């Protein structure tokens, strides 16, 4: 084991409490977002990181963080960047976890090597390079996760892009599920209008049982869809407004100006009635095999 590896190791061993405290203080100063829970998570992660750094520094070369000895650290950083990418952190905010370790480490080096300037410069730059490499690795992981998230979202979008079903001759249903952001609503709306044109349907049931929040943006999308459908010659019925959503709509002051029914079944019954069709009960249950 070379002298150089020893010194970082020695410093972390001897001053681990202080290092951790100073490091967390730096992170808090840098971090714009967080709070009690995130601080606790970060503290736990920092403690694990220092333990691992100690273990890896004992056996590994500082020059190459791709080697097997650094794997536990790399995994830890992968977890960190995945969590933060998913939570909407920026790359800078994510990598700050690593880069903010520099200052407290340098401070320890300065004290330790006060009388050996030449060595201090050398150690500082080696340590700096190590931290840089780990920081860059974190950013790479972050970018990979973001790409995955985007790819998955695009797939979900495609899968959800044509949910229009024909319930009956002349009656379409559009069950909406999930978050109605502008991009998705645009696709869904075009798909509904296209189906109206293709099938000549006169009634479209829009079911919002699966929409968790109806705010002014969602309402605006619904209103636009309903009036466009009307222009194409189809009347809309809104179904699946749950009681808590109904109350919220009233408080918001939204006026949807559309016939609505509690459930899709009620809406279908109304649609059938309107188009002059009826479902009646048989006087006698059908015998098996008879037609």
């Amino acid at each position, binding site marked *: 084991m070379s002298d150089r590896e020893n010194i970082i190791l020695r410093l972390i061993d001897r001053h681990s409490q202080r290092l951790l405290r100073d490091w967390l203080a730096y992170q808090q100063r840098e971090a714009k977002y967080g709070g009690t829970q995130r601080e606790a998570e970060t503290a736990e992660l920092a403690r694990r990181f220092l333990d691992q750094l100690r273990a890896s520094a004992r056996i590994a070369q500082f020059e190459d963080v791709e080697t097997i000895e650094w794997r536990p650290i790399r995994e830890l950083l992968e977890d960190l960047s995945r969590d933060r990418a998913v939570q*909407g952190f920026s790359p800078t905010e994510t990598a700050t976890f690593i880069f903010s370790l520099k200052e407290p480490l340098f401070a320890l080096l300065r004290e330790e090597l006060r009388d050996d300037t030449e060595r201090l410069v050398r150690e500082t730059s080696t340590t700096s390079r190590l931290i840089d490499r780990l920081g860059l690795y974190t950013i790479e992981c972050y970018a990979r996760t973001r790409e995955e998230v985007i790819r998955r979202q695009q797939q979900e979008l495609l899968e959800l892009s044509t949910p229009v079903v024909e319930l009956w001759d002349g009656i379409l249903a559009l069950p909406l599920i999930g978050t109605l*952001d502008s991009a998705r609503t645009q696709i869904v709306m075009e798909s509904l209008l296209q189906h109206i044109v293709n099938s000549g349907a006169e009634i479209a049931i829009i079911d919002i049982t699966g929409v968790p*929040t109806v705010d002014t943006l969602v309402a605006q999308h619904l209103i636009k869809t309903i009036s466009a459908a009307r222009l194409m010659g189809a009347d809309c019925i809104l179904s699946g407004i749950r009681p808590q959503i109904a109350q*919220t709509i009233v*408080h918001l002051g939204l006026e949807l100006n559309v016939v609505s029914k509690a459930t899709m079944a009620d809406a279908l019954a109304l649609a059938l009635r309107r188009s002059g069709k009826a479902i009646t009960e048989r006087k006698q249950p059908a015998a098996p095999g008879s037609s």
Partner: protein
Amino acid sequence: MQIESDDRMPLRTSDDVVRVRQAVRARAVASGFSLVDQTKIVTAASEIARNTVDYGGGGELRIEALRNGQRRGVRLTFSDSGPGIRDIDQAMRDGYTTGNGLGLGLSGAKRLCNEFDIKSTAGSGTTVTIARWT
């Protein structure tokens, strides 16, 4: 009044608005809100968060869980350093919009909450605080 938890989230994109809704919902559930109360605060949060992103140019949200004796509450503070609102009375009016909206976000959010406060300085940003109690 005690503060049981205190967290901050970034608010830059419409994805962040979705995340805000999820985080506020989780907080409201943890504070024992009924389904109706959850839906009200989540919807109000969605309105103010979207304003922060669309008009404020992005900002941040602070989520606090509160306790006052037996009652529990969630307080949300949205802040941005965007252009601000020149005439708050006008912005609070039903139907007033500068962005092709319905103009119901601010006034509707106020009706959905127990506490509502808006501070804005033209040129230096807007802070909206809302709270709902069990």
